[in-house]
């Protein structure tokens, strides 16, 4: 089914408001919409949303479509920010343009390419697609950021992704090298991990740039 870009963006906002923030729908005003907005009418016609006065509610029928719109948006963020290394407002803007191109199973291809990431670069969860569930069943967890490991889990460092050579250099000289086994000891307030017999603390920003292959726990 094809819906307009604007309708997709409304669904996304509604999903975040209701599913992630736990609100009862969203105010038209906060969405920046007028009651006679075309995209809103389109969604109303599909019975995806319910408009009650100043509030819009996401209906059960629209959940799936909204969830996938959020998924596409956050996968697009991963692509622009991690792979293309476009950050800041420009990164946000490009991600917003990209997400609409990911319909029709393109999201599956991108998701597989990115190793089924679980969070967007801002740390918010990416709703899993079918590909993610399949990969999980086959026991191929892929490569995840250190931030996605739980305390007590073990992994092998796969690669470091940082735009700053100094950071990379520092991490490598501390022994954070691909191929090394790592045990995450704490995830809060900082990330504490152990390599060999040494322990290191890094903040969330750095932890996001260390990618590990979750390994057999020992």
């Amino acid at each position, binding site marked *: 089914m094809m819906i307009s870009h604007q309708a997709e963006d409304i669904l996304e906002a509604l999903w975040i408001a209701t599913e992630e923030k736990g609100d009862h729908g969203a105010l038209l005003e906060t969405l920046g919409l007028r009651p006679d907005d075309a995209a809103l009418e389109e969604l109303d016609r599909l019975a995806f949303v319910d408009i009650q006065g100043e509030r819009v509610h996401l209906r059960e029928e629209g959940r799936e479509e909204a969830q996938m719109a959020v998924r596409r948006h956050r996968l697009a963020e991963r692509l622009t920010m991690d792979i293309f290394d476009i950050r800041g407002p420009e990164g946000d803007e490009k991600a917003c343009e990209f997400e609409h191109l990911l319909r029709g199973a393109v999201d599956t291809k991108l998701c597989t390419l990115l190793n089924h990431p679980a969070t967007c670069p801002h740390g918010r969860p990416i709703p899993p697609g079918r590909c993610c569930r399949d990969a999980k069943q086959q026991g191929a967890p892929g490569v995840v950021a250190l931030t996605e490991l739980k305390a007590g889990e073990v992994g092998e460092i796969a690669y470091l992704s940082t735009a700053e050579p100094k*950071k*990379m*250099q520092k991490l490598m*000289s501390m022994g954070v090298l691909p191929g090394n086994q790592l045990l995450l000891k704490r995830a809060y307030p900082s990330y504490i991990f152990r390599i060999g017999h040494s322990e*290191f*603390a*890094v903040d969330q920003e750095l932890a996001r740039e260390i990618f590990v292959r979750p390994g057999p726990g020992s």
Partner: protein
Amino acid sequence: MQTPPADSNHPKIVLVGNPNVGKSVLFNALTGAYTTVSNYPGTSVEVSRGHCEIDGTRYEVLDTPGMYALLPITEEERVARQILLAETGHIIVHVIDARNLERMLPMTLQLIEGRLPVLLVVNILDEAERIGMQIDTALLQEKLGIPVIGAATARKRGLKEIRAAIAAFDSTRRPTFAYASDLERDILRIATTLASDYPLDRRAIALLLMQKDEEVLELVRTAEGEGFAAVETAVRAVAFERRVDLHLRISLERKRVCKGVLDGVVSQDSGARTPFSERLSGWTMNPWSGFPLLLLVLYFGLYQFVGNFGAGTVVDLLEGHLFEEWLNPWAIALSDRFLPWYWLRELITGEYGIFTLGIRYAVAIILPIVGTFFLAFSVIEDTGYFPRLAMLVDRIFKQIGLNGRAVIPIVLGFGCDTMATMVTRTLETVRERLIATVLLALAIPCSAQLGVILGLLSGAPGALLVWTLCVAAIFLVIGFLAARVTPGELPMFYMEIPPLRLPQPRNVLVKTLTRMQWYLLEIFPLFIFASVLLWAGKLSGALGGLITLLRPAMLALGLPPDTAAVFVLGFFRRDFGAAGLYDMQANGVLSVVQLTVAAVTLTLFVPCIAQFLMMKKERGWPTATGIFVFVTAVAFGCGWLLNQALLFTGVLS
């Protein structure tokens, strides 16, 4: 990389290695008591030098700051490498942690490939054995082709062997380790374009060039002159042809070589239990147990030891008994007898006299407080607690524009803000250094001031609470705002967390004495200077003028006009001011509200003159003056607001 002047003709022993591997302990064991700690020429990094005699030969020993690799990132590492390259060591002693051989051996490899005369000390063997590791140092020596000594320097194990190895050192043995053939081809391609002589082997220079080391690039640029273009072309060609991160490639290759070297050297039996220190370490890093533990450390380390013992017992003994009862009367009687001029008597033993005020303050009040503080600080530092504290507060500190690392200068500020201002240079970005300096100047009372203020306010119910809340709130609010308006790189936090250890008394003592020595050398003259300035001010009437000038401000704060004197004194020493306040309260001229307002304003107001001069030295005139003006404005603004709030709500009256 300029060459510093050679200050001795003795052969040099240079100690290098990661932080926390026991280099300083080895340094102390080799050199004994007579060492000097001074800034390395042209930098702000401290380097220790000492001498030792082995088999009739006298050596100069240098302890370098911790470094992780030959490729420097921090200023400390840069200095460490500079020493390595410029001081032409007779022997380079690389100290590594036995538990982390695999991680630290790549640097040994780098030193060897630089054709430096390396002696490897595998340290902390005792702790490695406790966790079930067995290390065959003889086999390691055979495989590496350089002398390898197993040691536990903190337990005095292996010291004799290290001395023997230094005496028997044969600097002609230079082993080589080969990398993968494609990498070797690249290295050769670059190395053959190098024509000059370097302190390191050309092979090592080529590797550093492949890793984009900017300093080495500059070194090569000057050394090669005309030929540099060819070098640059070769480096670029290699980088392009490989199309991978060469730095990573080289690191991985070194790791592979080290794995081969370590094969059969290390064996691990897995039956060892987790020791208690490991569990304690876990508690310090868990916020639920970590913050209560922090409070315990603060209570016993700061409040009981520094506050009660240092600022109470020892100060009483020195100031109350030694000076007030013995030295001062004696000095006053002496000057009355021998000095015919009033102005000179005033200068030496008057109200603001060099002896009666300057020396008495420095020796009898400040030295015990700062001394006990430095002792407590060194003990805590040597247990390895600070990195854990840094990790615990990192998230909070990020909110105020700093990272967890800044906890060290901030905590040090509670001892002496002047020293802490100097230590801000260990922070990585200019932005962090600036924010930390402002916060130290504004909201961190030093131990002397803290001691007097705590004593002053503990008698007035509620006043202490109001004071604590105000100062803490200002710290957070100003930090929060500073984080938002100060431009520059955002801080990033990473740190190695060393194992918790029992501190070695000798090491703690050396550190404490070094810091106290620094304190006396830097601060003592300022005390004398301050008392001379006060004396001149008193005799010329300028002090009175300044106080008159400040009176309207005092009235605006709701304070008696006499408080102006307290503030002027406060600028000379934070605690002079607090002490003046103490007198006023003892005479009963201050209400509880006035006392609280004055204490808050005085705490926030101006860093003392020593701290101001240190700010000027570290940050330059314009910044230091800017901070001064800002701090003064905030202090008086807050004092005024607090006074209005207290009068309006009637909380303390």
